[in-house]
Structure formats: structure tokens, C-alpha cells
């Protein structure tokens, strides 16, 4: 039987890929380990290596074929002693993906399934507001591109701004956020570091104390735990300890929160941790426009800013105002969807889930308002309270754990300042109170899902 080569999954979030080009032709001899094709994933162009020996029998897709779902046969390899006749009847399989080799549970990829589903909701959150003049044109871009553009614009504007971190330069970012920056700004301003978070975070703070404007990228915020002493003890407290003489204008940024199937040490939300600290500003944008406008503001801000991105959002596209210098205010929440019946308060990826929930609730006659906090410290309680005074009901949504979380803070604030306006107790929708499990089914259970938000909103509405 000829071996069917299937479209491989080459990244945790990949669903389909493009066959950029074949590197071997039909009839070519192949050894295990040979690179036979280049395949473009949602992140990068990857080389596809054969694990079998044989002869390339038939290429089932031409160079440049796009949108090939994973597990679709893309070529047939003849094994020792086989002739072309062995392929009869197999080649037509090209059009249909091969049946999933295992039973479906393993394929239930919650993360990968999300982007498509949230499409309609995304446009709801268009960053219209006082910062965007009437008549402004919008362009669609990914969160990844928006972050890159924000850094590039600020680096052009201010020669003191530089980017430092693991794989930010030559590799262009482990998650490809710094694409093109090394080429434009050179190695003096786009600095590849060794793997030594505590060291380079401290060096970043020192450089900031001396007046430079570092952007320190953590490959993910999980690794910032190595460096948290400098973020808190050195960056957040120096202004106070020095009686206002000197502070650290620095941005610590990188992906935060759950990624897909990377288990307990690589999947955790640090929002509440940093939001706890006086002397820090903490930002957690959802869409591309706020990612851009808030990162530019963070870089200009004279204080240490912890800027929490989200890996699952990097590849999602949103409309961004086409303005030369689009800066959003820090410390200001945004009403992503107005509504009358209940207030859903969230940030980062939770906003997308909340918008989806709100759409579903609308179909059942519940008109939910969705607030995107954008900044977690200082927390814009005014916007939350004003909303709750109208809706009289509130649900908070976050990936982090419930105890001492952002939702706990929101609930306490509402209780203190709008107790009499509440018609129901605030409900917190959080990540489950467990380390992140690896198994697909458990991971899905551990994270807040759209249906959890819907159930919580119905509950505060007594429906």
C-alpha cells in the first residue's frame, strides 16, 4: 500500500495550511529525514520532513494550494517494490480529508475552534470612541501586526525606545510579534538575550532608571515569574522609595493566560497578580485596535507597565483605525457592546467570549452590556459602576483563578459602591481552581466557556 502523506498540524493552533512548494518531484527517491515540502501555517513557513523511505508516487496538490485542512492526503509515497499501479483509486482521496485517525475526543481543540465562531462578535468591538474622529477609515489587521506596528511607530518617534528579550531579533519573536523590527532598527535596538529572565528584566529596569525606554518581552508571562522580583521590587517601588526622584519607564510585555494544550507551567493568567501591585500599570487588551493604541500609550507612559497579551488572539483580525498616531488612554474601560439587562465585565480574550455570549443571549431576549476593562490597574470602576447602576446585574469573566481575582475585586467594588443598585449577587466566571490540565477534555472544563457566561447571565437575571 502506498503511504499517504497527510497535511500535518505544524503548530498548536493550526487548522489548515498552504502548500507553498514541493521540494521533490514525482519519481524522486526519498529517505526518512528529507525535506519534501514547505508548508505555511498560521504562524510561519515550515519545512515538512518525510519520516518514511520510498519513492514520491504522486503529488496530490500543486505548489501554492491554499486552505488544505490538516489530515488531508497531500501526496502518495511508494514503498519498496511498489509500482504506480498501487496508487489506483487512492489519488482521488485528495478532495476529502482522511477520516480522523482516532475517535473525536482528542480532536476537540477548544482553542482552535474559537476564531471562526467569534467573527461576528469581533466587529462589535470596533474601537470607536472619542479617540477616533468621525469619518476615520479602518483597516483590518491581526493583533500580532497591531502590536508590531505600535512598537515600530514608537521606536521611530523616540530613539530611547528599544526592545529586548528572548528570540525577539533574528527569530522575529517566538510568536512572531517582532517581525521586521530587527531589519528596520538593527541589533542595538532589537536585542536578543540569553535565557535569563531575572537578569535581563533587571537590566531593563536599570536602563529605565538611567532614562532609556525599554520594552522587555517575556516569551510568555509564565517565564516572567523568574523575573517578578525586578518587576515588583525594582520597577514598581523605586519611584516611591526615592521620594519621587526616579522611576522606571519600562514596558514588560508578552503573552499571558491559557495557550492551547501546554499544561500547568505554561498556561496561567497573571492579571490578578500584577493588578495587586501599587506602582504598576497593568494593561490587558482584547482587539487589535486597543492592542495598538494601548501599547503606544504604555511605551510613552513614565511608569512601569505590565502589558498582558494573549497568544490565542495574536492571529485574529480586527478593524484598526487608519490614523498616523492612534493612542488610547490608559485606565479607561470601553463599552464593547451596549445593553440594558446585565453587565458583563471582562478583559483580554474573555471579551471575545463575552461578546459571543451576549449575541446568544440577545437571541433569547436578554440584552447584555459587555465592558472591556482594557486596563486592570488603575481599574476604571466608574465605567463599571455606571453600567451596573443601569442594568442592576453583573457577571465578571476571567481565565484566572477565582480567589483574590479580578472578579473578586470588581464584585467587592460594586458591593461597596453600588450595593443598593444590585438586583442579584455578582457572579464570577473564572478559570477553575486547579492547575491547568493537559488533556483536551479537562482543559476545556478548566477554562471559562461561552456557555458558562450565558448561564451566569441568565442566573443574575433569574432566568
Amino acid at each position, binding site marked *: 500500500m502506498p503511504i499517504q502523506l497527510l497535511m500535518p498540524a505544524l503548530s498548536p493552533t493550526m487548522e489548515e495550511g498552504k502548500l507553498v512548494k514541493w521540494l521533490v518531484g514525482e519519481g524522486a527517491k526519498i529517505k526518512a529525514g528529507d525535506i519534501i515540502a514547505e508548508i505555511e501555517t498560521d504562524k510561519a513557513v515550515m519545512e515538512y*520532513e518525510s519520516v518514511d523511505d520510498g519513492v514520491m508516487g504522486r503529488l496530490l496538490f500543486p505548489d501554492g494550494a491554499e486552505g488544505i485542512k490538516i489530515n488531508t492526503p497531500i501526496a502518495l509515497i511508494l514503498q519498496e517494490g511498489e509500482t504506480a499501479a498501487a496508487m489506483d483509486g487512492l489519488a482521488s482521496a485528495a478532495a476529502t480529508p482522511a477520516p480522523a485517525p482516532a475517535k473525536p475526543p482528542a480532536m476537540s481543540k477548544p482553542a482552535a475552534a474559537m476564531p471562526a465562531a467569534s467573527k461576528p462578535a469581533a466587529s462589535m468591538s470596533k474601537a470607536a470612541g472619542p479617540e477616533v474622529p468621525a469619518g476615520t477609515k479602518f483597516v483590518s489587521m491581526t493583533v500580532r501586526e497591531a502590536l508590531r506596528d505600535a512598537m515600530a511607530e514608537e521606536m521611530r518617534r523616540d530613539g530611547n525606545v528599544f526592545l529586548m528579550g528572548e528570540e525577539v531579533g533574528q*527569530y522575529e519573536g517566538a510568536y512572531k510579534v517582532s517581525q521586521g523590527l530587527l531589519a528596520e532598527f538593527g541589533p542595538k535596538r532589537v536585542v*536578543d538575550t540569553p535565557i535569563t529572565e531575572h537578569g535581563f528584566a533587571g537590566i531593563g529596569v536599570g536602563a529605565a532608571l538611567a532614562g532609556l525606554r525599554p520594552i522587555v518581552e517575556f516569551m510568555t508571562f509564565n517565564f516572567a515569574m*523568574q523575573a517578578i522580583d525586578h518587576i515588583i521590587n525594582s520597577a514598581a517601588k523605586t519611584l516611591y522609595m526615592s521620594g519621587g526622584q526616579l522611576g522606571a519607564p519600562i514596558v514588560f510585555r508578552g503573552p499571558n493566560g491559557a495557550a492551547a494544550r501546554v499544561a500547568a507551567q505554561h498556561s496561567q493568567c497573571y492579571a490578578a497578580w500584577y493588578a495587586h501591585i501599587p506602582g504598576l500599570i497593568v494593561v490587558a487588551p482584547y482587539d487589535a485596535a486597543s492592542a495598538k493604541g494601548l501599547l503606544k500609550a504604555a511605551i510613552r507612559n513614565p511608569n512601569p507597565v505590565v502589558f498582558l497579551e494573549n497568544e490565542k488572539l495574536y492571529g485574529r483580525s480586527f478593524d484598526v483605525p487608519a490614523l498616523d498616531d492612534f493612542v488610547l488612554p490608559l485606565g479607561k474601560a470601553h463599552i464593547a457592546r451596549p445593553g440594558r439587562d446585565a453587565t458583563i465585565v471582562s478583559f483580554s480574550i474573555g471579551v471575545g467570549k463575552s461578546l459571543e455570549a451576549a449575541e446568544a443571549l440577545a437571541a433569547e431576549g436578554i440584552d447584555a452590556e459587555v465592558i472591556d476593562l482594557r486596563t486592570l490597574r488603575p481599574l476604571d470602576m466608574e465605567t463599571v459602576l455606571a453600567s451596573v447602576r443601569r442594568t442592576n446585574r453583573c457577571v465578571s469573566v476571567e481565565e484566572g483563578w477565582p480567589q483574590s481575582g479580578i472578579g473578586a475585586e470588581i464584585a467587592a467594588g460594586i458591593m461597596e459602591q453600588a450595593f443598593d443598585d444590585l438586583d442579584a449577587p455578582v457572579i464570577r466566571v473564572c478559570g477553575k481552581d486547579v492547575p491547568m*490540565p493537559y*488533556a483536551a477534555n479537562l482543559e476545556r472544563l478548566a477554562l471559562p466557556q461561552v456557555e458558562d457566561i450565558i448561564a451566569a447571565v441568565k442566573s443574575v437575571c433569574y432566568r
Partner: protein
Amino acid sequence: MVAASNKKSARAASDKAPSNSGIQDLPGLYREMLLIRRFEERAGQMYGMGLIGGFCHLYIGQEAVVVGMKAATQEGDQMITAYRDHGHMLAMGLDPKGVMAELTGREGGLSRGKGGSMHMFSVEKNFFGGHGIVGAQVPLGTGLAFANAYRGNGAVSIAYFGDGASNQGQVYESFNMAELWRLPVIYVIENNHYAMGTSVERSSAMPDLHRRGESFAIPGRKVDGMDVLSVREAALDALEHCRSGKGPIILEMMTYRYRGHSMSDPAKYRTQEEVQKVRAEQDPIDRARARLLAENLIDEAGLKEIDREVRAIVAEAAEFAQTSPEPDAAELYTDILR
């Protein structure tokens, strides 16, 4: 900040001639390396089929390191490593079915599906993980040695880490205390030349990693990590050093990873020629096979038989990993405290 690839271009090679000692054990070592190779190839395939998620760091190319180290150890010696850990677990005798089922996140996995590729452990086999934070296993492995010294049990802890990890501060904090307290720990630096996309030359002010213990008076040795007998010989010496109460020692294993860092690495930081050259000239399995034939320790039929056995083990593991059910939902809340 400037690439210094000219500093040292001989990849994976080291100075010494291949070792001859223990050659009678070579058939078994060959088999273990082959098991790791075939297991990892299958894991890569299963990742491509969507059966394995998240990160999956393959050990292909580095097999001789862990197999040679394990061959020199005694009952009671411990091992601990980072996330590139499948080979270590197979070498420590963990059940291939349980490892593969952990990769697919199933109930039959060694961590019952809760740990995944990067997090597996075996108290029974003295394997202490499986750690995702670069460098973290180094003080942990030093702590295992602390316990050995505390108990006076004569066991040695082997802590593996990468060239990239060797720049983490906690490595040096560990070195200092290990030498200060004469702890029985072998630091095995698996120098595969790259930490993700960063070559040793681009990350290390002093790239001779076996010399990184000098300022703590810890001896270090550079070893051909692509030759399983050389690894075994170095390991025997190092274990003897530790067991005789002389404290820690560093072994820098010159090795190479053929695949990307994890499954989503476009690998633009090195050329295909570089990879193919190492594969063609230094592959640890090919080298062992050639030795076996040259020394008449085995014939072609014997090699085929080993290949068949290994393939059967891997096929069985893959089958088990796909048929084992997902963990019960109630598992979400177990094992948080005891």
C-alpha cells in the same frame, strides 16, 4: 549582538576518539537508542495527525546522551530533566505505552493525562520529571543530591539541561551550593548548539560550557555526545567522582537535535545542509550500527530483528495511546493537595 558563527563551526563533534570500553553492551544500547528514535518519529507523526497537542519537543539526534548515561548508573540513582524528556523516560524504563498515552492526554498516560509531553514522573524508576521552566530542574536535581547526601545512601542525582538553560542564574546558584556542600550531582549539559533559534555563540560569552563550573572549582569535561560508548565511559568516571565524595561534576555532551525546537519551529536559524551533514556523519544510531557490524557483534539479520521488536513496541504504544479513554471529568479536581 552580532552573530559569531565563525567562532566555532564544527557542529556536534568533540575532541576525543570514540570510546571502546563496554563494547560488549553495545547491542543493548543500540536497541535503546533505536526505541527512542522510532518512538519520537511516531510521536511527531501523531502530532501531525492532531492526536498530540501543545508543545512536543523531540529528542531525535540526542539519543546517545541519555542511553549512555543510564547505562552507567546504579539502582537508586536519580534523573531529572526539562521538557525534552521522552527519551529520558524511555531510558529510565518507563512504560512506552504510558508515555505515549500521556502525549495524547489519555487516562492511561503516566500523569493520567494531566501533565502532557513536558510533565511525566516515576517515583518507582527514580525519574523526577519533566519540567517546563528552563533551568528549574537544575536546583531541583541539586536538591535530590542534597537528600542523597543527607541520607548517606550513596546515590547520585543526574540533572540534565540545555545549552540555553546554562545561562539561567539559578544554575550558578546551584553550582555554588553543590560544590560548597560536596553534593553528589552530575550536571549533564546537553549542548545541541541551539536554544530555540539562538546558537550557543549568540547567547554565551564563554561558549565552552563544561568550563562553566571553574569559578566554583567544579570539574568539567567535554564529551562526544553522539557516541554512546564515549558517553557511558564519561558517565562511569563522573559517577565514581560523585560517589567517592568529591562533589559535583559537569559533563558537556556535544550533541545535535535534528528536528525543530518543538513542532512549530520554522528552523530558519540553521541550514538544511548543516542538519544533513550531522545526520550523515555523526548519527549516533548509524555509528553504533556500523560499529556493531564492524566488530561482528551482530549481523544484518540481528539488526533487522531489533528493528522489528522496536517497531512492535512503538506500534503497541501508539495503539494504546489512541484507544485509552480521555480522563474522567472528575480528575479535574484531584491531586491538588493531599
